[in-house]
């Protein structure tokens, strides 16, 4: 406790960012330390699990120390440890979980394992102090494209997810085909701003009526076929138009499914989360769509959209509020049901 507030240390290491953060009473962010490996993995055109795991171990204690120091607290002030325990790369997850368990044991403090997606959604609580469930959440990243009905802080219901590629994954693959490197998201976003989103007509895959699932692999194939065809014809690829049209096709589907879900479940708020939530087109479209329908619109700042420990600390706080603790036998899970540890 510090100044009567509950201090939570969060740890996140599910993919290629090693992060630790300290929050007070859940939403007040005291510090956030992130060690990104993006420059390393760029060399390989994607995240290499073994390299990611090695770097997590290299960085984990440094980010923990930074988070504690920057928050201006002592280890003894920590009331709770929150850690991402899945889903993610197993070798990466276990570095964070092992460190978190050692902390909890050494400090005699409780530990809460947090589902990575629950964390992403919680980033919105830090961003918007007034936001409370229920609302419709869209989590889009390199590994996920999900529509989640948030009924309570610890009552999340998965309405739909991607059946093949995640939105960010499709963007990475298209960027690779276009020869503009990894990761694809920011560079496609940037190119698209100078392009015409209606220049190339890519099909919007909505799947069967009433489904909140996504499928982006067909769109990805369309783009790749288009690129190959243009190259075969000896024509220059209009990169800006291609990026704009492709991005438009992805985001239109995400926005329309989110709106449908909000309507069906009677929610008047929509919150974006995950790395793709920092995409400027998605933010613009979702904001505009929410405004037109009189819905409240929420999205975290870009730094809270990427994988970070602040969101994990926040989610851990709300789990602890409802007594949903883990214990020292906590494990790491490469695949994890969204409702894990909520009942």
């Amino acid at each position, binding site marked *: 406790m510090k100044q009567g507030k509950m201090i939570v240390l969060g740890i996140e290491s599910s993919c290629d960012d090693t992060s630790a953060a300290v929050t007070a009473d859940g939403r007040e962010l005291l510090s956030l330390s992130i060690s990104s490996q993006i420059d390393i993995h*760029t*060399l*390989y*055109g994607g995240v*290499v699990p*073994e*390299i990611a*795991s*090695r770097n*997590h*171990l290299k960085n*984990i*204690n*440094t980010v*923990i*120390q930074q988070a504690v120091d920057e928050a201006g607290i002592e*280890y003894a002030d920590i009331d709770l440890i929150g850690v991402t325990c899945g889903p993610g790369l*197993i*070798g990466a997850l*276990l*570095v*964070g*979980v*092992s*460190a978190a*368990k*050692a*902390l*909890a*044991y*050494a*400090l005699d403090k409780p530990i809460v394992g947090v589902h990575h997606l629950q964390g992403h959604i919680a980033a919105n609580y830090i961003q918007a102090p007034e936001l409370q469930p229920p609302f419709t959440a869209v989590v889009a990243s390199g590994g996920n494209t999900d529509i989640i009905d948030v009924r309570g802080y610890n009552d999340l219901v998965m309405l739909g997810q991607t059946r093949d590629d995640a939105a960010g994954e499709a963007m990475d693959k298209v*960027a*690779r085909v276009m*020869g*503009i*490197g*990894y990761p694809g998201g*920011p*560079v496609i976003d*940037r*190119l698209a*701003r*100078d392009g015409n989103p209606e220049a190339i007509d890519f099909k919007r895959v909505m799947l069967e009526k009433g489904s909140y699932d996504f499928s982006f692999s067909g769109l990805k194939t369309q783009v790749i076929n288009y690129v190959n065809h243009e190259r075969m014809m000896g024509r220059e690829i209009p990169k800006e138009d291609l990026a704009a049209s492709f991005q438009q096709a992805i985001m239109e589907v995400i926005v329309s499914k989110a709106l449908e879900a909000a309507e069906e479940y009677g929610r008047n708020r929509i919150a974006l989360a995950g790395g793709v939530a920092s995409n*400027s087109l998605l*933010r*613009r479209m979702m*904001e505009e769509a929410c405004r037109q329908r009189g819905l409240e619109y929420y999205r975290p700042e870009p730094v809270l959209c990427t994988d970070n420990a602040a969101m994990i600390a926040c989610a851990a706080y709300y789990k602890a509020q409802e007594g949903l603790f883990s*214990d*020292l*036998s*906590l*494990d*790491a899970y490469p695949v994890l049901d969204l409702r894990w540890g909520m009942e």
Partner: protein
Amino acid sequence: MIVLAIDTAGETASVAVSDRDGQIYEVTNTDSLDHLRSMIPMTASLLSEHGIDKKELEAVAVSAGPGSFTGIRIGMAAARTLAQVLEIPVAPVMTLDAYLYHDYDAEGPFLLCPMTDARRGNVFAAVYEMPERRKLVPEGLYPLEALIRRLPADRPVIFTGSGAASYADRIQEEMKTFLPSAEVRDRQPVQAAAGAAEEAERIENTAGVLPDYRILTECHHAATILKCAEARKAFVNYAEAEPVYLRKSEAEIKRKEGKLGLRARKRQETERQKILEMPPAEEVLQYRVLTENDVAALAELDALCFGKAWKEDAFRGDLCGSRAAYYEGAFSSEGKLIGFAGGVSLLEEGEINRVASHPLYRNRGIAGKCLKRVLDRMTEKDVRSVFLEVREANRSAITLYKNSGFRVISKRKNYYQETGENALIMQWTGEERPE
């Protein structure tokens, strides 16, 4: 010394702790590859069982490898974090070194060959002359057969470690063909399945005669790690405790070997950087005078920008009031209001009341341009001096006004009632305006 030792480099995890009297207690998880789940709970119960408080710990020893990468990382992450919080040093122990401190219950000189499985028929191994602990073959990565052929045939050999367990059959094969006598070739090797106690019993059964070689399949050896750490006293700060990886990751090897199409990737990276560094996309914005018809759009944008927003009526008050109004807006290509500046004037004196821009369109000089258009129109109406007030903490707004030619002329303490913040009063006279 009270030391905690963690071994998660092998198939099963074990932890050990020494008490003040030098007594060592050890516990092993018999479930294989259950390290992450079990290691801390095992530690907790071992310590409490022997009445040791974790705050009494003076060091943490940990197997640093070589071994299973994943296993080593579990142990290393925990050891480093415990040391970090408890403010004690770490003793990283090389897996092979630890075997030197195991009690082999053997009489006379023998060769010790600890090895870890490095896959594809390779072992990371060393050979020591025991009991002197003298190195005969240095630690290194060897094909199993090559290592065995380097062994002198004059002493019995003890093979141990995870490599010995994985390659037990191949060691037996190799030893048969390597050792010359028929008697040896036909002798069934004595193989211990579990710990040292059972092994000792078997040796006794063969009437004190050591076989030419033994294979000890390792089960656990946190206690051995602990003994090695205490004997060597090689303690480091937690931040310096590093795992020993046998080799670079496959991806790194391929990259070094040029098998990843690095040149193509470099080209892509250059291209990517070029795109990311392009100046911000310049959407063509429309600037025009705002009128009473725009109050709804003004109120909406205002609500988006300010905690305490102006309602439509407030804007209508300015635009339709008795004083001359000057409102300038910027519109996106879709015709949406995304920025504005507005004020009023009476005779030669003007006042700026509101300046804002849409969050998605900030840092593009839009508000500044609107403000300039307002000032230009005021100048046309012979306004000579324009005032505004701004929160002292609003650095970005103050910068914007300074860049537009405003100067701070006074400060009003506790001007904003809700927050008690100070206001700065700024004035523009048109004279010092930088072009």
